[in-house]
């Protein structure tokens, strides 16, 4: 019985691993193929089935003049915009969430829950609805086709996520902890920074992860709000597509664009496995 259990356990682990890893391996091998190897029947193993070459990768760094699509600058643009917007969203979102969780706001019929819903409702609308006001807004303040403009728009998109996650998190942190900090001589800012925030790291990590993911994968707004001066990675990758689909360079760009998310996932997983996400607050 026990042996069967162990066998089944490892069996499913192996099956699941193959299921998860296979697409990456496939993308990796494909990125080293040429037209012939992709279209000439099924090939898997480099040097045996096909002769690997670096053409797919070279396209990504060659300048357009030499027939390539230079993704290096868009890549760093994307990293910069995502990280900056996520950081600002987390800071603003956490502060708003703390206020919404601890203080009572009232303006006519508008109360705390309505304000929280207002934040979340920003994500209910389909992007296309938002694109027109965003476009007009950015053009009126001369920030179309700029990194700053994109950061502003991404903050609007990401902050609701941070607020939503953190309000819920702060509501689970007992108020008595803040009160004890006040009694122990902290002013309200110190109570937040020295006591509430250190106990909210798990929530901050989850919120940060979601912000980074949603910022990094956005194509739509990056496409609508930028033209020539500034480009982000997802938009640039689409530019790869021509009359003959270049599977090799698409695979290579898929791998480089998924890499930051995998790194984020590993960091969070490390943190999770240390057991730090649970038990901080009883």
């Amino acid at each position, binding site marked *: 019985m026990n042996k069967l259990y162990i066998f089944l356990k490892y069996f499913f682990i192996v099956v699941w691993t193959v299921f998860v890893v296979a697409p990456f391996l496939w993308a990796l091998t494909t990125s080293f193929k040429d037209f012939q190897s992709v279209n000439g029947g099924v090939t898997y193993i480099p040097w045996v089935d096909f002769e690997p070459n670096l053409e797919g990768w070279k396209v990504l760094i060659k300048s357009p003049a030499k027939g390539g699509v230079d993704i290096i600058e868009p890549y760093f643009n994307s990293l910069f915009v995502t990280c900056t917007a996520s950081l600002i969203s987390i800071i603003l979102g956490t502060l708003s969430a703390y206020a919404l969780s601890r203080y009572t706001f009232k303006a006519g019929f508008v109360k705390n829950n309505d304000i929280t819903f207002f934040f979340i409702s920003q994500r209910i609308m389909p992007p296309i609805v938002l694109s027109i006001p965003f476009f007009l807004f950015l053009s009126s303040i001369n920030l179309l086709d700029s990194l700053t403009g994109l950061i502003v728009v991404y903050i609007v998109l990401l902050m609701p996520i941070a607020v939503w996650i953190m309000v819920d998190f702060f509501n689970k942190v007992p108020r008595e902890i803040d009160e004890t900090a006040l009694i122990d001589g902290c002013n309200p800012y*110190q109570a937040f920074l020295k006591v509430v925030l250190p106990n909210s790291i798990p929530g901050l990590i989850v919120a940060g992860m979601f912000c980074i993911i949603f910022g990094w994968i956005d194509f739509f707004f990056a496409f609508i709000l930028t033209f020539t001066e500034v480009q982000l990675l997802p938009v640039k990758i689409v530019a790869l597509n021509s009359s003959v689909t270049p599977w090799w360079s698409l695979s290579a760009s898929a791998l480089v664009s998924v890499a930051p998310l995998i790194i984020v996932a590993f960091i969070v997983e490390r943190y999770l496995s240390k057991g730090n996400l649970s038990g901080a607050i009883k």
Partner: protein
Amino acid sequence: MDLVANNLSYKPDDQYHLNEVSFNFKEGNLYTILGRTLSGKTTLLKTIAGLLTPDSGEIEFDGKNFLKVPVWERNVAMVYQQFINYPHLNVFENIAFPLKQRKIDQSIIKEKVMDALKSVGLLGYENRKIQELSGGQQQRVSLARSLVKNAKILLLDEPLVNLDYKLREQLREEFKNLFSKGLADETILIYSTTDPRETMELNGEVIVLDEGKILQVGPAKEIFENPNSLKVAEISNDPPMNIIEAKISDNQIRFEGIDVEAPQHLSKLTEDGLKIGLRSSDIELNENGHEFEVELAEISGSETLLHLKRGDTKIIVSIEEVLNFKIHDKVKINFKIDRAYAFHADGKLASSPFGGLNG
């Protein structure tokens, strides 16, 4: 340094949480706030701490308007009924937190924290995580954190209520020792509880609170002997005092077809609507007594609580041994009637076996 409150009221919704509360607490004394759940005990403590601002009224401490001092400058300490500590800090850091906040020298902090750990019996635990401690130990940590500050006002909000029976007994003993050890010399200790037994054991000045109103103030003994009203008698006894509607005439107390000879302190009360109060421990089983029917028998610890009924009169009797009864059993009981209280129809104390409020 006195803590004086004048007509504190707090009414956040339809109900008063505090209703015209006034008191004068003196340093070096222990004050026990006794009241049922939701009677306003926590509200009162939070108001003293500064976490709540009353709608009206004043608090003065050391002659200064306390309401103008923010919480973090009040130098109070508070222990909550939930075991509140800082989960991200270990035991030592938790206790050191209020001292670090005051920017005290590191070596002095260490010395003081160790002293506090010693006085709550947690030496050797300083590097533990809070989550690794039991409930009783967590509560000791928060007690140590409140002791280490040398606060002028120490607030304990039902500190034992979430602990199991044995720990509660043990920690209550330790509290009594701590309080009597001169800690209290220049501290105002305010302890809130729902438990009459705890109140009597702590033996401080008792404030009976109900629906945000102070019903009676006095030493524990005085509250026990001469509760000034039916409500206080109910709140300050566990199980609550039995209340029997009776008539007194011809020197006899009459109810449910029973005649009991009235003791001297009750014999002259012949008014209508009189209520007789008798503690559950002042009724005993007796072969020659009056017959009652068992409604419920609970065994709690080493005593049995009998819920009895005769006609419309329901009473609770506590017996100092474990006995088994069935529902609808008939039992015979006797009243130690010379220990009975009498209350007027409006609930005010009419007569007490201890001589009444001025006796």
